[in-house]
């Protein structure tokens, strides 16, 4: 079980958080995107082995979202930040 750093509350056990998967780097305009491009943006993720950026919410704490970099192979944690700075 990980200990994650909530930007507002400090380090807390993983059970207090919810993960929403990787920060999607795909940005498409729904008004113009083809079916394929839209479905790709909605459903497909890189699923990288190694460091990636992902969303977490301190669900059973302050309820605030943040992003953090986590190595999917080793669970090593790196930088994190508030929404708006993820890309």
């Amino acid at each position, binding site marked *: *079980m*990980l200990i994650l750093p909530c930007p507002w509350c400090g380090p807390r056990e993983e059970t207090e958080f919810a993960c929403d998967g990787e920060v999607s780097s795909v940005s498409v305009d729904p008004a113009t*995107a083809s079916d394929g491009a839209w*479905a790709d943006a909605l459903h497909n993720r890189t699923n990288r082995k190694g460091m990636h950026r992902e969303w977490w919410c301190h669900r059973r704490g302050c309820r*605030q*979202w943040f992003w953090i970099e986590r190595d999917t192979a080793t*669970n090593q944690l790196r930088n994190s930040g508030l929404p708006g700075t993820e890309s």
Partner: protein
Amino acid sequence: MRIAADQAPFARIDRSRPVRFVFDGRSYEGFAGDTLASALLANDVRVVGRSFKLHRARGIMGQGAEEANALVTLGEGAATEPNVRATMIELTDGLVARSVNTWPSARVDLGAVVGWFGLLLPAGFYYKTFMGPGQGAWHIYERFIRRAAGLGHAPRATDDRRYDKRHAHCDVLVVGAGPAGLTAAIAAADTCNSVLVLDEQTEAGGSALGMPDRIVGMVDRLRSAPNVRVLMRTTAIGLYEQNLVVAVERMGDNTADIRLSAQRLWKIRAERVVLATGAIERPLVFDGNDLPGVMLASASATYAMRYAVACGRRAVLVTNNDGIAKSAESLRMAGIEIAAIVDTRPSSALAPDGIEVLRGHGVVRARGRSSVTEVEIAPLTPDGKQFLPRRRRIDCDLIAVSGGWNPTLHLLGNGAGRTRYAPEIACFIADDLSPTVAVVGAAAGELGEGYSVRPAWRMPAVGRGAPWRQFIDLHNDVTVGDLALAARENYRSVEHLKRYTTMGMAHDQGKTSSVNALGILSEAIDRPLAALGTTRARPPYTPVAFAAVAGRQIGALYAPKRELPAHVAHLGCGAVFAESGGWMRPMHYPLAGESTADAIRREVLAVRNAVGIVDNSALGKVEIHGPDAAILLDRLYSNDWGSLAVGRARYGLMLTEDGMVFDDGVTARLSDTHYLMTTTSAGAGTVVDWIELWLQRAWRDLRVFATPVTHHWADLTIAGPRARDLLGRLSLDMDLSPEAFPHLAIREGTVAGLPARILRASFTGELSFEVMVPARSADQLYNAVMEAGRDLGITPFGVDATLILRAEKGHILIGLEADGTTTPDDLGLGRLVSRKKDFIGRRSLTLADRLRPDRPQLVGLQSDDDRVLPGGGVVWSGDSKLGHVVPMSSCRSPVLGRCIALALIAGGRDRIGSAVTVTAIGSQHRASVVSPVFLDPKNGRIYV
């Protein structure tokens, strides 16, 4: 047999404290300080179990966690623990244990008579028989295999002992309190604030227990240090990321007092972890190496020195390494005669005083009926692949073997490091360690000054049957024959080989078998061992009782029970409760002597004909505040929202980004900048999370807050043609006339002296008022309504009646027909999709898939056989499958007098008027497709 005190002067048993115990129904005596294993050996009990597959007699082969044979069922009745290793059981007075996998006892086993059965179970048997073309065979074989295989039985009664969990934090955690661990802990204690030491044994000392001098004073020094805590009988079962170590502490002999914990599960966070987990000796693989009397040399030495137990009178030692010298010294000191040391190496430095060393020799076979009586040896060819002719037999009752040592590194399996093969000491050592994890002592490959080993993975086989008696995995009965067969069938990946042969998959997880298997495989397929890789050791290091993992979170403490605010009032009305959406909710309210079906029917009719009351407090409620509240709602809901007047309410659908309906509810406008949103019960939490996600991550510019208030407000809904009359009788400061208070409006005021919000909305299809009051006043309002409505026929109704009422109206229910795969249009709610604005899910509604004419669409079904249709049943048109009956939508409608249901069927709306067949296991029905709105399609009963 027990060794005289002067021959084991440092033994850790207390001869002044005899301990009585029972094994397989016979009574024996041991001493305090014994394990069950040492006490059985002291009593010359050699056969302690039968092997898994072949039911061969098995004896104790190890002295600790590595034991692969001596599994017992410990205890009796509810506290029974199956499959415990006898080597890990502290002997206590009155202890009762039984061998597993035997019937009637280990000594006389009827399963062995059918030992031939095992010959039918070679490598890959399970795969070939059950996963190939003949996979139906499992049904035939299962009972036979399960009985033949049987590995202990879990008790059927409830274990009423306590299991607890504890958390700990420390600077340094030392796993293992042998000489290396004690040294590390003492060093850490000098420089760190807090040190925690774990050891699975009953006392610290590890391999030094029973030996002279090595650890004198160390334990006392640790115990007196204020910053050190030592936990004995505690096994670290897993090392996870960020140095989380999970350990199980067995609380020793307190079975008499159920108030005390039986076990504790520790979750330890350590800045640094030191693994001083020692090393486990490897067996040697030869014909008959599973006979009782064949054991690890180090184990026989431990029994001699620590427990003062001789595992035999006359021993032959077999080795491929120099470590055997230490074991030989211990055995000799204990008075056990050593007939010879058989050394597989052509040359070695091994030269113990006065013992014959037969260099370049190997074991042809171990002989004996139920235990070893002699060993047959012969010289080996220089490459070790064959025996030379000059065989020789030596009388002995103990064959003490050493195939080298494996550092115990199982805890590295979860990411704290890797292992690599170190050919110079023929074992796997730690590699690529996390910077906060260290390995010391034998675990680090420090196997003694000048330690030298030459692998001898297996002895040559003499005779065709011999490979099938050369055991690699004693527990799962995996032999050289099995492994060679698997290799011939091209199972070359270690992970595949493991699963195919079940090698290393027993309770011991291959502690004594994995590396030997790798060595044998490497020779069989002629690839270097280092290139084969290893299977990953996964937690737990040793088996853990489910009870320890569950701790106190069982029974009533498993999950919090949420009761509705008017729970007491429901009890007073005779409610039958069930959990629904995380709440204990009244299902129905049977009168004395009334059947469930009659109660539900009576409740439905009361709502249709008079008035009923239902507790909707579980519905989610969210206050939306802020100048941009209307914009937020417009984006969340698929239908238009901005034009809603203050005091009015609207039904809305929320979609996920893929265009599927995920929640619904009525939301009311209380002021320009203030709305009250209602959600489904199950969606109460997820909708708030959903709103927060969008507000925080995408719409940070919106000036709006969403505050969950579900638990703050009770919601008692009064529904039925007499609802207005009833509500009017409660002292009320608002006008209930249809003109002043139309359908889909909200009013704030007081009801029965309580501050209230009344929302006029209808799920039942009747005139309906949701009266919301502060949760603490729910009972008061409930009782007031019941009192005021007595002569109107006020009837409490529950979830069951609600399901029928909504099905008659075709109102959708999230989680049933809105199952996450249906769009608004699928549910017949296409009118609730705005064409004027953007909202979550909009783009996905025009994906080609969402426009298919054969999408599932919500329709009504009407039974043509006057039978209740099966919920979940399959709907057919001729031979083509159209869809299914929505679960929990099927009923005999009390007002319509017909059996109705909702269904999701392909292109359903175009099929209205057609006939279909509905099937479920064991039944077939005829039905007609009709509109999903069975009752009052013009909503005349609501708008009154």
